[in-house]
């Protein structure tokens, strides 16, 4: 599971990207090639996170270069997605994030966000199988 808050000073966003950076290879992104930049609005501050994807290889940086897709949103919303509280696609429909450019890349990227907290489908499954 990715991006779980470690508590303390690190925001869910920071731990999400930190975790992604250490992985280097992510099978869920095997079909993705290109870069997505997240412009996170945090009060007066604007934070850039850029993820480069190449058939499953990923690199994370803060650079503000020309990306294939750019997504602008509040950092609080990203914190929510990174911790499983906010569903990225529903948030897009609500207008909380505005993606531009190669939207297919954004769609593939959102696979990385964790399951909602308290989703017990798997546990349920095990329980049913154990019957």
């Amino acid at each position, binding site marked *: 599971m990715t991006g779980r808050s470690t508590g303390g000073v690190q925001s869910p966003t920071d731990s999400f990207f930190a975790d992604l950076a250490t992985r280097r290879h992510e*099978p*869920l992104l*095997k*079909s993705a090639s290109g870069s997505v930049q997240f412009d996170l609005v945090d009060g007066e501050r604007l934070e850039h996170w850029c993820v480069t994807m190449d058939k499953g290889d990923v690199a994370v940086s803060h650079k503000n270069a020309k990306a294939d897709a750019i997504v602008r949103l509040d950092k609080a919303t990203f914190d929510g997605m990174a911790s499983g509280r906010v*569903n990225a*696609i*529903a948030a*897009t*429909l*609500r*207008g*909380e994030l*505005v*993606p531009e450019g190669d*939207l*297919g890349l954004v*769609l*593939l990227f959102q*696979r*990385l*966000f*964790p*399951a*909602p907290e308290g*989703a*017990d*489908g*798997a546990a*349920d*499954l095990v329980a*049913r*199988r154990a*019957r």
Partner: protein
Amino acid sequence: MSADLVQILDGNTFVVSDARGDIEASLTDPTGLFSFDTRFLSKWVLKIADERLSPLSVDNLQYFEARFFLIRGTGTVYVDAKLSVIRQRAVGDGFLEQLTVLNHDDKAVDVAVRLDADSDFADLFEVKDALEKKGIRKNRVEDGRLVLGYERGPFVRETWISATEPAAIDERGLSFALTLEPHGEWKTDVNVVTALSATGERHDRPKYGSSNREPRPSMARDLDSWLAEAPRLNCDWEPLTEAYRRSLVDLAALRFTTRTMPGHALPAAGLPWFMTLFGRDSIFTSLQALPFAPELAATTLRALGERQGSRVDDFRDEDPGKILHEMRYGEMTAFEERPHSPYYGSSDATALFVVLLDEYERWTGDRALVRELEFEARAALNWIDEYGDLQGNGYVSYKRRNEETGLENQCWKDSWDSISYRNGALPGFPRATCELQGYSYDAKMRGARLAREVWRDGAFADRLEKEAAAFKRRFNRDFWVDDGGYFAVALDADGQKVDSLTSNNGHLLWSGIVDKSKAKSVVRHLVGPALYSGWGIRTLAEGEGRYNPIGYHVGTIWPFDNSFIAWGLRRYGYKAEAAKVAAGILDAAQFFDGRLPEAFGGYPRTLTKHPVQYPTACSPQAWSTGTPLLLLRTMLGLEPVGDQIAVDPALPRSIGRLELLDIPGRWGRVDALGRGRIKT
């Protein structure tokens, strides 16, 4: 829905109005301008001198364009035949309405024209349930246009209305004061724009707008080239030619483009209320259309692959590897009052995704796509065992986790009473319906071929084939109803057979899971009097506890179901029986002007001289539209064999001579010919 409503559409933007072109939304007549599952106009009423007009006639020019001829007065009494009005409307990012007022008198006349406009911005889900809006509606006049607006936090939707001729604009509509010379005319273009919608894109004019008027709108050119790309059909039997052309035009109308793949279309499920991406419907329709428009399959596979489930989410019934059921874009989906962002409550789409990928490659030879979707196809195959098998008994079954807004029945027969025992009792959940097992078996066999030939993973291929063979043996033992000689429709939660006789047996033939030794008995049932009505194969056999010839999945005949059964009959070598099924359905199509409905009554053909249509709101329905296409394939016996196409015609005698020319595929383009010899 009233029969005289007029629908035009472009993708998922559509207008439903009355025969005057007016929109006055009510619960019984869900009219309006809709886009991305939101209503952008709920009121659009044309008046002259404060009076409504009467329709003389409506021309449905194309599926995206209509023209209304109107006259003053109501009913049969015309107050004034010296004035007439033409409204011509083309849809796309809203619509363009070209309004013409004609004076037929030899005197000049002053005319007050009024267009009343408003919008409730209802979500499609709200239209039928009449739910209260949670946000704020506010209309305003700004920059020479009327803006209808709706806001709920960051969720903003706007409709912009403007005219090319001078108008007095207020928050309720547009007024035009004009003087018409003797035999004079007046024209204006009115632009109604879905300015802010779910896509985040902004539009400031309709797609087919007045500022870039062309001799032919691009959509008409597009339809022409779509028809020109498809194989040509020559046939002695006129009704088939008509049904074929109807199918191609309707399929063009049903094309839907997602934002991630602009310029590429996939088949949506139905027009107009189901103009969105569906797993099951888009896959079945793509399969039917493969020999005719293979690019639909490619787009469907990519779009579903991109949105494949990646986590366990109970609200959306999502699991890793699962293929979605339905995507929606409206307010209730956005605020998670409905789970369609997307919703994954379908237990067949995941296996069918692999089936389509393999069948697509067999026809087109497009191995690049098979490589591109390797991860998704493997994840889908993994889902079957890892998540689809809810009970750990080796069979795929379903039980929703979203108990509030999720779907109870996650197979194609998705109504509450579709799965029953012979005595009519309903099983509990989970339910392992038989066709799910067939699809899973087929997915493994086809996945094995892809693994061996494209992904170069022989070990994985061997494993899948071994599993599939063992699975087939168990299935033929566990689902077989001994005293009936057919397969049970499902296993219930206790592993007991749900023993009614259903059309699902035909899908099992299509999937190849039926033991050769059992096929004969299954086929005898499919074309026997309990299932076969003379028009087609019933969903549930006559004589079963719940049988009802006009029950949605308990006795009606579904053309799409029959087309896959015909394919299954061919797979097992029952050519004459396949021809018989095709002949019945195509005979029925004649009674619907070549446009097969979603379902029709299961009454015996000897009882009703025509097939009785089941009333549904959606027409055309994509997989009914695809039915004549798949029946053409099964009648001609078209089958890719290596880089060639095999043709093995078995046509009903009534059809006479049949030629299908320029069938596209890995062989380039080839022709197939046949002559009707089978008495049906």
